[in-house]
């Protein structure tokens, strides 16, 4: 029995190939992601182990609280370096800083994109080689406040050479420095694309933190003192709220941070690999169903001459195992190539990865094999069961057309699965059950619709194909009839495409609704005339003196910087926003329901009404707010507001912000014009000031909306690119089904050709059958995608997604693309069908 299977496979190599490819691509993507994760992780493990090798102990402020932007901690007094140096067993100690600094290239453009890509840091050039992770590639160490060393990556991006003058953006304004050294980080041009500007200790404190403040102290142990011992000794000498780590501990933390950075990326990629495999499973299911139908006579013959049901079942499953094995092995091999490509993708999104040997771990091999084999075999189980049910008598019968598909059982099963999926999804979206149920519900909906597919396929194909007889005559009529003749096959083929289209349309709708909501928010509530955007978020931004200079302009009425910092309000991590309470009210409508922003002083806070309600807070209540620098502070609620566009949940005055937060950066500055000042005059005046701030972009209301939209578009394009794989696999599925159908219809094609169908007409028939299948998949996908999109927007309506926007033009474009994709998928099957030898086709058995 197994030998028959193998012979069958060998005889139809092409079919084996097309079936395997559907799984191969998904496995390759999965293996690629795993290989990438391991390779990059390993590379950075080595890198950090290497650069931290000389560090015995690491001293820093205690973690005040965790946040989405990392652990928040207070800085250390620089004088602590002396204290640590004096500890017995310390050979040498140096203070280090890691704070915002960004280089400006010779064209006045900033280097790096800390909002979307790797951060840009400034720090202290450490004098001790053991402590300094950098090595000079050229030049020397900085000796005065006007000298810096920069990383080699930034030097080549900005085309800098030794002796060049360079502008550096810092907390305390734009500094002009001379590059005296170019350094590498553990042999790499820069760590993960992070840009570094390294100053003398004095300059670093003045520009990056504040005089007398450093972020950490790195320590070298004296001979014979263990790291653990040293850390314990230092811990006794330093004040409270100071944390002392060993070299190994800080290395592990660095490594973990990078691994977490990659894992975000790899989970993202893995999602698409799983989608690809899910789509691939439909192809496998369909291929095997068709094969079983085509071979039912052969199976019946086997049964007639004594094969048991188990043997027939086994032979089909064995074929699936072979397909799965080949696909998994080839996918694994291809995955190494994919990993290289994904690495380029990581570089493109700003996560530079050093070169390192490709790491293929045993877990990668095992996971890929399990995924490939599992998908293949699981998808073949139903067709195999069907094969085993072929009665021996079928060997003697003609196999009739299988136009079934609308059974009551199918209708009920499909509805139940789909309904269950929709319910689970709803529970996750609206019931607050979280992402888990959503991730479970979505595939269930797809499977439910796929089960219902055959019921839908005939009528929908009939409608979709209705213009064909008029447009393409008999060739068109036959195309429509062929698409309708086997609803199970048509719908299973279309279902694979449906998944990709549903996800693409869902994402498109989500993006367009987000953009529409933002745009509407700006239209409705934003009354400012210009926004000066820093292009960063969370790290660095515009020096507050920009807003001061703008305030002095007579052309402007209201000016307010907008700052944010991670905090804990009443124990919950959140972002706290800040601005000039009076000016901000002229710029945006907060929807203040109670109290007044005028009352916001050093210890007052304004709270979003929904947040206040859910916490049971009212005006006059006191809430604890925790800052990294000043610890817990009591704030009194002075105002409640309803619009979260600018202020999110919590808003305090700049006075309160500056008193509690170490680094003052404006992420944006909002501006309204004085009466009688035209937009051109206003822009000219603003631009004159912002020219000194290379990271600032001046946006009017329209540009402001567009800029927010373009960020969404960037993300959207990345997701499109990754979903393209799922769509491509679905198209392979269409081509595969058509090829198998053509094989099955050989005699019919021969007959058609004999009675006068030209090759061109035959190609037309195949092409439009393919188009109908593609359109069926697109129609179903759009229906699901729009429903998902609607549900998601409704679920997020409390989080600022106020508008459900259907992007008609994009959805139409998708339908048009589907038509062309259908045409493309039909090229090879159509060509093969049209080249059929008429005589052989007629007399074939």
């Amino acid at each position, binding site marked *: 029995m197994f030998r028959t299977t193998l012979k069958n496979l060998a005889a139809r190599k092409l079919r084996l190939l097309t079936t395997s490819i559907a799984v191969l691509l998904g496995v390759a993507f999965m293996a690629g992601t795993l290989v990438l994760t391991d390779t990059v992780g390993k590379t950075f493990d080595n890198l950090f182990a290497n650069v931290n090798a000389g560090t015995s102990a690491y001293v820093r402020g205690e973690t005040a609280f965790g946040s989405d932007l990392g652990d928040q901690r207070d800085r250390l007094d620089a004088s602590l370096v002396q204290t640590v140096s004096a500890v017995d067993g310390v050979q040498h100690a140096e203070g280090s800083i890691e704070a915002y600094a960004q280089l400006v290239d010779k064209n006045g453009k900033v280097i790096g994109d800390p909002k979307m890509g790797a951060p840009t840091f400034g720090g202290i050039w450490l004098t001790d080689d053991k402590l300094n992770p950098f090595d000079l590639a050229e030049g020397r160490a900085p000796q005065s406040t006007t000298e810096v060393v920069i990383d080699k990556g930034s030097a080549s991006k900005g085309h800098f050479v030794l002796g060049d003058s360079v502008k550096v953006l810092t907390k305390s304004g734009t500094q002009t420095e001379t590059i005296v050294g170019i350094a590498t980080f553990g042999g790499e041009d820069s760590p993960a694309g992070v840009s570094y500007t390294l100053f003398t200790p004095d300059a670093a404190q003045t520009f990056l933190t504040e005089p007398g403040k450093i972020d950490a102290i790195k320590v070298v142990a004296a001979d014979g003192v263990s790291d653990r011992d040293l850390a314990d000794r230092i811990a006794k000498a330093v004040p409270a709220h100071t944390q002392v780590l060993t070299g190994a501990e800080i290395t592990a933390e660095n490594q973990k941070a990078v691994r977490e950075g990659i894992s975000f990326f790899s989970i993202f990629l893995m999602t698409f690999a799983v989608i690809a495999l899910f789509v691939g499973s439909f192809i496998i299911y369909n291929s095997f169903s068709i094969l079983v139908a085509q071979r039912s006579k052969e199976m019946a013959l086997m049964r007639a001459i004594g094969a048991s049901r188990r043997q027939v079942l086994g032979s089909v499953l064995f074929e699936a195992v072979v397909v799965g094995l080949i696909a998994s092995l080839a996918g694994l091999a291809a995955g190494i190539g994919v990993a290289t490509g994904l690495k380029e993708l990581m570089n493109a999104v700003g996560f530079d990865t050093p070169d390192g040997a490709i790491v293929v771990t045993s877990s990668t091999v095992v996971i890929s094999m399990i995924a490939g084999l599992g998908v293949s075999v699981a998808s073949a189980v139903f067709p195999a069961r069907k094969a085993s049910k072929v009665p021996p008598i079928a060997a003697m019968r003609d196999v*009739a*057309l299988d136009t079934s598909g609308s059974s009551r059982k199918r209708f009920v099963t499909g509805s139940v699965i789909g309904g269950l999926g929709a319910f689970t999804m709803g529970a996750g979206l609206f019931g607050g059950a979280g992402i888990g149920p959503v991730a479970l519900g979505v595939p269930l909906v797809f499977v439910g619709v796929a089960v219902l597919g055959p019921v839908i396929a005939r009528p929908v194909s009939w409608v979709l194909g209705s213009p064909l007889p008029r447009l393409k*005559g*008999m*060739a068109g*009529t*036959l195309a429509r*009839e*062929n698409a*309708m*003749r086997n609803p199970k096959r048509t719908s299973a083929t279309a279902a694979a495409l449906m998944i990709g289209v549903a996800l693409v349309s869902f994402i498109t709708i989500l993006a367009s609704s987000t953009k529409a909501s933002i745009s509407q928010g700006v239209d409705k509530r934003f009354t400012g005339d210009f926004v000066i955007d820093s292009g960063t978020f969370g790290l660095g931004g515009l020096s507050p003196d920009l807003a001061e200079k703008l305030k002095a302009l007579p052309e402007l009425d209201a000016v307010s910087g907008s700052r944010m910092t991670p905090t804990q309000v009443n124990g919950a991590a959140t972002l706290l926003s800040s601005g000039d309470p009076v000016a901000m009210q002229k710029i945006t409508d907060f929807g203040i329901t109670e109290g007044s922003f005028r009352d916001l002083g050093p210890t007052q806070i304004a709270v979003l009404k929904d947040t206040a309600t859910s916490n049971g807070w009212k005006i006059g209540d006191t809430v604890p707010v925790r800052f990294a620098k000043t610890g817990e502070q009591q704030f009194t609620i002075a105002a409640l507001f309803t619009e979260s566009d600018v202020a999110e949940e919590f808003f305090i005055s700049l006075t309160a912000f500056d008193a509690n937060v170490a680094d003052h950066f404006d992420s944006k500055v909002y501006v309204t014009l004085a009466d009688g000042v035209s937009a051109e005059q206003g822009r000219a005046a603003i631009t004159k000031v912002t020219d000194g701030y290379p990271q600032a972009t001046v946006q009017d209301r329209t540009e402001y909306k567009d800029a927010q939209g373009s960020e969404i578009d960037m993300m959207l394009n990345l997701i499109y690119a990754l979903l393209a794989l799922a769509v491509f696999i679905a198209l392979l599925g269409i081509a595969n089904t058509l090829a198998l159908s053509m094989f099955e219809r050989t*005699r*019919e094609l021969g*007959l*058609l*050709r*004999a*009675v*006068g*169908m*030209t*090759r*061109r*007409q035959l190609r037309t028939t195949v092409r439009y059958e393919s188009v109908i299948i593609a359109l069926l998949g697109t129609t179903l996908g759009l229906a699901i995608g729009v429903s998902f999109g609607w549900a998601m927007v409704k679920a997020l309506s409390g989080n600022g997604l106020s508008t459900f926007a259907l992007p008609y033009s994009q959805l139409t474009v998708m339908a048009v693309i589907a038509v062309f994709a259908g045409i493309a998928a039909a090229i090879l099957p159509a060509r093969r069908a049209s080249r059929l030898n*008429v*005589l052989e086709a*007629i007399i074939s058995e």
Partner: protein
Amino acid sequence: MSETLTCTSPPVTRLAVAGAINATKQYGKGDTIVTALDNVTVDFHAHEFTAIMGPSGSGKSTLMHNVAGLDTLTSGSVYIGNTDLSGLNDKQLTLLRREKIGFIFQAFNLVPTLSALENITLPTALAGRKPDRAWVDLVVETVGLANRLKHRPSELSGGQQQRVAVARALASQPEIIFGDEPTGNLDSRTGAEILDFMRKAVRDLGQTIVMVTHDPVAASYAERVIFLADGRIVDEMSSPTPDRVLDRLKRFGD
């Protein structure tokens, strides 16, 4: 090619609508070469029902396939009307089959997704023309399918399916109809019915039919029988009866 290409055999000179001249067809190469047709020259007459007979391997199907434009000769030529088929490409051959030839195969004659009527008018529809309604009605009536036209092939009996095939072959009013064992899959009574329709098509509707068969009874419905053996025409018979055909066939064994 002109209409002067006629068969000169007695008693009357009749118009040839199709035929082969020095037709040779070989398969394979070198030592394994097989000659299926060996220098065959034959004419098929207008408005005549011709049967081609011979033992299996005699080349009777090969002859028909070549004259019908389904296969190409190794040497020699075949013609339909005034068209020499040897120079035609695939598209020209296809259009020729569509316009001038009707086919009745042994099995799998019908497109399963089309109704009986759609199958009958398939060649005309492929040509993008409207069928001649009056003629189609006459044909449908002759083969007795008037109340089955909306049915799909799977809803018809084997005999009914062959009747649809006969109707399809007639519907486009071709110059010649080729039948490849058209009753081979039918029981004798249904087979007789189909052969009767074919004879009616020639006698009453003025069609021309060439039929390959190995059944003497089927051959007896024809007006002329051509006997093939080893790729050559070995005999010919007018006004055949089953017994005379059987007798002639028996002599092949000698």
